[in-house]
Every structure is written in C-alpha cells, then in structure tokens.
C-alpha cells in the first residue's frame, strides 16, 4: 500500500489513527474527575506533541541513519520560526506561506552549516554544529536584533505591511494565523457525558504535516538513499572504496533533517506567531537528541514516542504539586503522609527534570534501543516460544532499521 510493504503500511496506519484520534485518546478521564490533570488532550499540548514529533523524526533521519550526532538542530527550529513570523509580517497570515518559507530558509542554513560541519565526523562534528547553533543564538540576541527583535522576540505589530492582507483588523486587533480563513486557534469542543474532547484546527494542520513527514521518513528509510546512509554509519572506508562519495550523502541527510526542523519551527509560529532566540538555545538541541534516543534512534516510530513522552512529562508531570500529592496520600496516617510527600517532592512539579533524567538513564542502560526496544521485548514475551526464536531473528535482520 502506498509503496510501503505490509509491516510499514501497518505502522503508518497506526500512526495515522493515533494522530487523528488523539483528542479522544489523550483525554481518557472525565473533566471533573481527580485524574483529569493527566489529560493531555488540550490543543496547545497536542500541537506540541506533533511539532516535536516532526522535529524528532527529521533529526532521526540524520542521527539514526548516518550516526552523525548534531547538537545544533535547534538553530533550524529558530530559523524556521523567524522566517515564518517574517512571512506573517510581510505577506499575510496564511500559514502555508509561513511554513513554506520556514522550510526553505532552514534548508539554506542547513546547506551552509552542513557543508562546513560535515568536513569532520564524530565528536568534532557535534561540536561544530553546537558552535553554529550557539552563534546563531548569540547573533539573534544581539547583532541581528534588527531582524529578530532581540530579547523581546519577533512578533506581529500594527505597523506590519502584510501586503496580502490587512495590517490590522477592523476592530483594531491583530490578525491571527489562518489557513485560507480557517483560524488556527479555532476549537470545537465535543461533550459526551462527563467527557470533553477538543478538536482544534491548528492541531489538524499540524497532523497533516506530521503524517506527510512521517510517510516521507518511511520512504527514505526504505530507499536506496536510506540504505546508503546506513552504510555511511557502518563503514565510510568501504563506501569510498565502493566508488561512493559520502559527503553529498551526509549533506543531503543533514539538509533534509534541517528542513524537518524548519517545518517544526514554521508550525510553532503558525500556532502562536511569536519567535524568540531561546528557541535556538543548546538545551533545545539537546532535547531532540534525548527524544530520539529515548524513543529509539534509527527506528521509525521511536522519535515520535520519545517526543510524546518528554512533552507529556514536561507539561503534565510538572503540574503535580505537593497539594496534589497530599490529596493522593490522604488515606495514610498524617505523619506517614507527610513523609511520603516529602520524599516525592523533589521528583514532581519543578523537579520533573529529575524524574525524566532518571528514566532516561534507566532506558539508556537497560534498553539501549529505547522505548521501541522495550515494546519489542514485551511483544516478544507474549509471542515467542522457544522453537520459533531463530526464525524471528532472521525476520528481524530483514528490517535492520526498524
């Protein structure tokens, strides 16, 4: 189906179903129940799941296939964001304009940064990309503040030309990003009994791009180009002595993944037309590395899972505070209750990084293949009988990049 083999087509359909039905899946608890705070089905967070999913899927095309670990991919996220907001300011509020310009601008940056950084490999490549991203961040903050509006961040204003639309709405408010009139913030809420499900226009715009991006990633993984990228990771020497030039292969992978990052940046500003320099900070670059490794580098679905996992933690886990804990452990005797809350305190709320860090370490140590490997092991427990173990191994080697 769609030029994919059975296994990939199934994976693709699962992702499509999950993305389309996310407003239901992520809101499993009735709105007034005590567990409602674990609901992740509100538009802002759902959009972020998809946007960072795109970011990580693109990053994985570079890191997962070629093994080149870029520590500067946030630069493309930032470039994409600025390019998008400038489109809103100069041309008009249609998100397609912004997204196209984001992708193109980040591609240009990726060609330049990639051309220079890819002259080295391993740790030196990582350091070069990190240096570029930090330079971009510093420039955006200081020298280039004419373009980036420095610390305040680039945002819409009443004086923008917006040649294809109105600078200001009739009522004096700023126009909002839209897709041919459909506003990105438009949300329909569906109430079924005690449940409420939000269907947001912006989310479904992100969903279209995410599904297209994921489909393209599958095609790239299974293509001769993708095989060459895995060959680069495996043995560059043999590549050269097979008559293949590795440089354009790695550069193409770098630019493609930079364009995914630019797309993510463009979608970010389409949902909220504001771009700041902190989007290029090295912690953002590190975050996408974490997402990819946590989910499973070099696998198709891994980066999506990793992105979802980290964003869920960042937004949901961080909201649990001491009061919530007291509520949960109210059944205990007072002293014990206070003790338990005291122990858990560093791991919740603002301490969510600590919990995430511990989980990350556990995954890297015990599941080097990330969450995907965890899933495979669980599946294996159910499926595997001693007899067909060998057969499954040969099956697995058919799709080494899965």
């Amino acid at each position, binding site marked *: 189906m769609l*030029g994919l*083999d059975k296994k990939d087509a199934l994976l693709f359909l699962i992702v499509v179903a999950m993305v389309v039905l996310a407003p239901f899946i992520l809101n499993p608890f009735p709105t007034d129940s005590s567990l409602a705070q674990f609901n992740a089905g509100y538009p802002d967070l759902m959009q972020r799941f998809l946007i960072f999913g795109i970011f990580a899927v693109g990053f994985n095309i570079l890191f997962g296939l070629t093994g080149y670990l870029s520590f500067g991919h946030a630069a493309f996220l930032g470039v994409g964001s600025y390019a998008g907001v400038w489109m809103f300011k100069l041309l008009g509020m249609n998100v397609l304009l912004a997204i196209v310009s984001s992708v193109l601008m980040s591609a240009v940056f990726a060609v330049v940064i990639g051309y220079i950084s890819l002259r080295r490999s391993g740790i030196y490549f990582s350091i070069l990309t990190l240096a570029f991203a930090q330079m971009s961040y510093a420039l955006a903050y200081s020298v280039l503040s004419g373009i980036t509006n420095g610390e305040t961040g680039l945002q819409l204003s009443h004086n923008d030309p917006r040649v294809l639309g109105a600078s200001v709405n009739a009522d004096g408010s700023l126009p909002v990003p839209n897709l041919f009139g459909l506003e990105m913030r438009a949300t329909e809420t569906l109430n079924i009994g005690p449940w409420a499900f939000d269907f947001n226009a912006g989310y479904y715009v992100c969903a279209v791009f995410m599904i297209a991006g994921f489909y393209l990633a599958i*095609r*790239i993984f*299974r*293509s*001769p*180009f*993708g*095989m*060459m990228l*895995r*060959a680069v*990771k*495996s*043995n560059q*020497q*043999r*590549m*050269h*002595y*097979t*008559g*293949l*030039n590795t440089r*354009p*292969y790695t550069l*193409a992978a770098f630019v493609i993944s930079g364009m995914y990052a630019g797309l993510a940046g463009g979608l970010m500003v389409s949902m909220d037309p504001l771009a700041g320099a902190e989007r290029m900070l090295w912690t953002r670059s590190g975050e996408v590395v974490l997402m990819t490794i946590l989910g499973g580098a070099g696998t198709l679905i891994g980066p999506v899972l990793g992105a979802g996992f980290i964003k869920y933690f960042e937004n949901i886990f961080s909201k649990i505070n001491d009061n919530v804990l007291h509520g949960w452990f109210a059944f205990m005797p007072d002293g014990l209750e206070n003790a338990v809350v005291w122990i858990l305190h560093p791991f919740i709320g603002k301490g969510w990084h600590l919990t995430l860090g511990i989980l990350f370490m556990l995954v890297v140590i015990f599941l080097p293949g990330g969450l995907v490997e965890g899933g495979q092991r669980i599946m294996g427990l159910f499926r595997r009988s001693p007899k067909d173990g060998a057969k499954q191994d*040969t099956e697995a*080697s*058919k799709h*080494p990049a899965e």
Partner: protein
Amino acid sequence: MGILEVKDVGKRFGGLQALGDVNLSVQENTCHAIIGPNGAGKSTLLNCLIGKLIPDTGSVMFAGQSVLGRTPYEICQMGISRVFQTPEIFGDLSVLENMMIPIFARRDGAFALNALSSVFGQKDILEQAEHMLEEMNMADKRHMHAASMSRGDKRRLEIGMCLSQQPRLLLLDEPTAGMARADTNNTIDLLKEIKNERDITIAIIEHDMHVVFSLADRITVLAQGTPLVEDTPDKIKGHPKVREAYLGESA
C-alpha cells in the same frame, strides 16, 4: 603497455624513504604479486595506487589515465577495486544489502538522491546481487547481519562486493592474513576461479608464499622501497637476491 603503469614513484615520510623510484607494469588479465619483507613499502605502494596517499614523485597510470590527485571513490569508479587486509564490509547491514550497494554504485555513480523508491523494489539490482551471492556460495546467508559472519565469509563477501563493481583491476592486500589454513585454501580457490573465469587483472600483496605461488603469473619483489626483481614465480623461487632480501646476507 600494461593496464597499470607505475613510473618512478617515490614517497618519503619525514626521514624515511618509504618508496624510491618504483617502476611497475601490470599486464591486463594477469595476476601480479608484490612480495617483500616487512617494511619493504608494499602497503605504501598500494595506498599510492588507490588515492589514499599521493606520491612525492613519479606517475601512476591506470588504463591510460593518471590516478594521481583523484579521490579513492573516483579511482574506484575508474575500475579499481580494493580488498583490505581486514575485511571491510558494512557490518550493520544484511549480506544482501552489502551486495546491493556496489551494484547501485556502478549504476548510479558516486551519488544519487534515490530517496523515494524502495530498495527491494529494484528488481534488476536485486537480481544481480542474488546472482553474485550464489556465485560466492552465500545465498543461504543473505539475510544475516554481515558483522556476525566468520572471517572467511566476510572475506568472501568483500571479494564478491568488489566483483559486483565489475572492476578491471582488483587489488588485494594480504587477503589471507590471519586466516585459518582451511579458510586460506578456500580463498585461494576462490581467487583462482575468479582469475580463470573473468576478464580481470589482479594485483596482490601477500606474505604467504603458498598463496603467492599458487596464484601469481608474475612476481615483483620489493625491498627497502625499491623493486629488486620482477619475474615468473619459478624464477623468483631460486633467485639469490630474493633469498638475500628475505633471509639476510649470510644465508
């Protein structure tokens, strides 16, 4: 005029004259062995042929074209393939994928952005790869992880990959180094088969005299960076200069 002409090639590393005025002519469709004691400059010479090193002086011509100043992949695309001392294969890929890559490289050149078609949808390439695997007697291993094979099998795969490029010249750098006797004999048989059944020139660097004398049509003996003698295997065997180079003057 041979297919490979090495003229007055010299290479110096600091104070060490690794190669001095090497002249060598490899004739088409022969097997030419280069032997010599450790430090004779065999590997340096080989690296000069495939673009890994650029000699200080002299010229290297392959099929009428200079290889100097070209990168390894360009030289490979000209028709020179190299088998390494330790097998260089794509360990993370399956055996079949390993075999497909050189065929892609031959068809599409040094770079092709072939990102939307499926690898296994390319029937002609798949067919050629399967064919070559059968020739190498490895068809049953096609879905194995290349890294998990024995050294002999890796060597066999590497030679198959090189042949898939349909090179005019196959360079082998001590292809049996570190192999068990049985694997060595298998490799010799394989190379003999290749030599007899294909239009291919083979240049081989080897320590193992058994391998050299079973394969070579001509032998060049290298010592201290210069060729001592070049002759047929029979004449080389009893040559006094060769004995001297290998065993020292007193022998």
